[in-house]
């Protein structure tokens, strides 16, 4: 196999963004993908920064980056890089059929399956709480035959929010498609059905019927689980909005993701167009290095190694969940190059008492310099042509900060031009 300019490992948000950025700059790019990454189980929104030290970020999240610690990936890359990356990503999505916008100068708060709201930066603008509250009536679609769809829980939680106080909150029940089934149906099953003409007709007529029974004249929003298609999401949403005369909003949900697959679909389409070669089922297990240069990465292939050479390498293998980092008692290790990460020796020091507070373990990862090269404890680059991006990076806690997607996109976008 001919060497490429850039070999990206991992095809989640960071890996795909890196690959597309490099390709947009005229590089030949290959992506080694072990699986679909955690992107595929996530939602159609990109969090940039929702909380700093447990406090809500008000105003433009980009203005709050300076309040993060110095070793935070955003601080290492700088605000300008973050702005550029988000712009690049948003345009990329738009060109590939996905509305995900950046115009807002502050975080949007979007509804979750639990009825709570979470701050995020890039998402479909109709998902924003303010947009929902701008309607006289919010219809919450209930599908009792669908897993993880709890309209009553959402309604109860909404009713607690000031902004919904004078709004009509109403639950409508949608009948199952295809009759009784013993299968557990998830929003992903429905979204895939809605991608088909039959499915779109089914959902559109269900919603239109319900809306027709309500008094007209009220400005109405309909809140659904993410079921408005995966691959044909944009056109389906447009047609259905027209047919129902309502604003359509979707919740973010636990896996299986629908929104994440929409992003993945848009990015892999873009990759195909840009000539990026995604090699599926390619599990990189080792690296061949010489001094401060990486020569090639080794993919596991039926017990034999297969070497993939390139001029530069971007490692976006994910964190503990994705498999880029593994832990043994009191130790953590990067999985391709095998170097130890800075980790507390005492297991007690890995966790904080409250699960959802900032967790020390969550900040474990690969420490990098300003070029995103991994560094030794002395601060020297380990390999000059290897860059790390996404959840493998040290210094941030995506869950408490709500910063996962942002760090992934920005580090992928930031690493690529250095190749």
């Amino acid at each position, binding site marked *: 196999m001919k060497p490429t300019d850039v070999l990206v490992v991992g095809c989640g948000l960071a890996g795909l963004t890196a690959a597309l950025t490099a390709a947009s700059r005229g590089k030949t790019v290959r992506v080694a993908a072990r699986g679909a990454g*955690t992107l595929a189980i*996530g*939602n159609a929104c990109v*969090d940039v920064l*929702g*909380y700093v030290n*447990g*406090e*809500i970020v008000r105003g433009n999240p980009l203005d709050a980056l300076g309040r993060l610690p110095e070793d935070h990936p955003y601080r290492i890359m700088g605000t300008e890089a973050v702005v550029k990356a988000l712009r690049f990503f948003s345009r990329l999505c738009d060109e590939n059929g996905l509305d995900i916008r950046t115009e807002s100068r502050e975080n949007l*708060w979007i509804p*979750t*399956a*639990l009825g*709570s*709201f*979470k*701050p995020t930066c890039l998402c479909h603008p109709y998902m924003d*709480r303010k947009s929902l509250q701008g309607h006289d009536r919010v219809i919450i679609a209930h599908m*009792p*035959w669908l*897993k*993880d*769809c*709890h309209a*009553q*829980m959402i309604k*109860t*939680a909404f009713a*607690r*929010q*000031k*902004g919904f106080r004078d709004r009509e909150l109403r639950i409508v029940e949608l009948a199952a498609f295809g009759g009784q089934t013993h299968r*557990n149906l998830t929003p992903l099953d429905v979204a895939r059905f809605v991608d088909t003409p039959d499915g779109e007709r089914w959902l559109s007529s269900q919603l239109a019927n319900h809306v027709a029974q309500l008094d007209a004249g009220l400005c109405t929003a309909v809140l659904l689980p993410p079921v408005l298609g995966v691959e044909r999401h944009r056109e389906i949403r447009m047609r259905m909005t027209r047919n129902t005369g309502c604003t359509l909003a979707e919740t*973010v949900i*636990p*896996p299986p993701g629908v929104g994440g697959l929409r992003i993945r679909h848009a990015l892999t389409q873009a990759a195909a167009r840009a000539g990026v070669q995604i090699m599926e089922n390619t599990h990189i297990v080792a690296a061949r290095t010489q001094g401060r240069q990486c020569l090639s990465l080794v993919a596991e292939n039926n017990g034999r190694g297969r070497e993939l050479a390139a001029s530069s390498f971007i490692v976006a293998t994910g*964190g*503990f*969940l994705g498999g880029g980092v*593994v*832990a*043994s*008692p*009191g*130790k953590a290790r990067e999985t391709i190059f095998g170097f130890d990460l800075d980790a507390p020796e*005492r*297991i*007690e020091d*890995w*966790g904080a008492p*409250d*699960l*959802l*507070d900032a967790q020390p*373990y*969550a900040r474990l990862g690969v420490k990098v310099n300003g070029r995103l090269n991994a560094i030794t404890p002395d601060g020297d680059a380990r390999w000059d042509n290897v860059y790390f991006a996404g959840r493998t990076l040290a210094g941030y806690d*995506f*869950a408490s900060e*709500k910063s*996962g997607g942002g760090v992934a996109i920005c580090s992928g976008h930031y690493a690529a031009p250095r190749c």
Partner: protein
Amino acid sequence: MRAFRVVVIGGGATGIGILRDLSMRGVTAVLLEQGGLAYGTSSRFHGLLHSGARYAVSDVEAARECIEENAVLRRIGRHCVEKSEGLFVLTAEDDEAYVRPWLEACAEAGITTEAVAPDEARRLEPALSPEIRQVFRVPDGGIDGFRLVWHNAMSARRHGGQVRTCHKVTGIESANGRVTAVEVCDTLKKETYRLACEYVVNAAGPWSGEIARMAGQTVDITPDRGTLLAFNHRFTSHIVNRLHESADGDIFVPHGSITILGTTSARAKNPADTTPAPEEVLRLLSLGEPLFPAVREYRILRAFAGNRPLYTPPDHDAGRSASRNFVIVDHEKDGLAGFVSIFGGKLTTYRLMAEKMTDLVCGRLGVATPCRTAEVPLAEQPSEEMLARAARRLPAHRTQLVAERLGDQFADIVGGLEKSGGSDLLCECELVTRAEVELAAGDEATHFLHDIRFRTRLGMGTCQGSYCSLRAMGALTEIGAPFAADAQAALRLFLQERWRGLRPVMWGAQVQEIELGRAIYGSTLNLNGGDDETD
């Protein structure tokens, strides 16, 4: 006005066994529990139904009690017993000289032992170490402590007994050297009231010292902490014991889809000190290696700890050398009539302990009705008709599972399953249906999602609540369960308890699970997020 003749304090196996026994003998009784049923030691152990072989050498009397009660529980509590056999295994590290006296002591106690060739044992349990030297089969079994307590509670209620959970005893009143009443606080309603009674039974386990102090009495107990590990698969189908003198980390007990490794023994700081420490976990893993060399490779679900209420008279040590026998103290000899304490013992002998205590109380109350708890099953067998109806709603293998879980409430469940959506699976790891969750939610002793977990095993499987707790809260909101009114607060509480068990085992696949859980509840659902638009 006395509504009850006896107040039982403590909602573990001992207390609930006493409530059942008293109720079956026609004595009006109420049980007060500060938390929920089986929140304490009765759910924080390895789940072994002892054959007695573990105690045969050190305490033949305790061993004999075990084997007798083992047979009784298989009869009356078959829904709670898993009929896995036990193996005692002499590993490369154990002293061969222990084998003969152990075999003799087992024979003396009436515990059958049967030699199994090591090769045959390895055929039965391929994960066992190739270096094992001798193996014996014994009639150990598995027992579900949560279910045992709940089934006892349901049986007690049918006989008129009352259970009040989230009721913390705040005082014990007496007059002229005799107990007159218990002062108790309903911690949910934040109301304190008096319950007049003739007898108070202190069965508060590791808390029994505190209860006794309220009555101006002392009991010699030391809370002794035992830490255990739950693994996320069943790598052994037999209960596997080290064949040596009782020590830490020498038993593996399979339960449903998981395996438990126990136990350590160390003095607890206080009765509520049940947070496991990482060094105990690491020690358990090294102690477990001679039996299962790959034990470090297996995924740990969680670590947990419970406090044994060990009897330690002033001249005795706590820990392993302390007696596992139970003790009944009648405080009348110390100047307070109508107050009795029970502690020590093992879950396996809970019924016998309850019988002895109830004999004493009934004797004093002048009640001559004999004990029948050894004969009357805790729950009736479900009828063929009900099983057939349930089988139409559930996959075949789940019908029996549901029948055993719910005991006498199976008929109610079948009704629930037949309703639309009733057979939907809310917990996919432990196969718990919506109907079961709704039924458990409706029980007057259910105040938290944890109570539903104990009743149904929801959230106890591989995902440790990552998926099912949200789903359960959704279902509970739909039926308007009071504790689901603030679903987000209820979820936080539930996940936080799960987190307590994960924190000491933060490596390997557990960290992956934690990362996923935080992605769902932190990143996606923003369960912790301050949101200033919520009142």
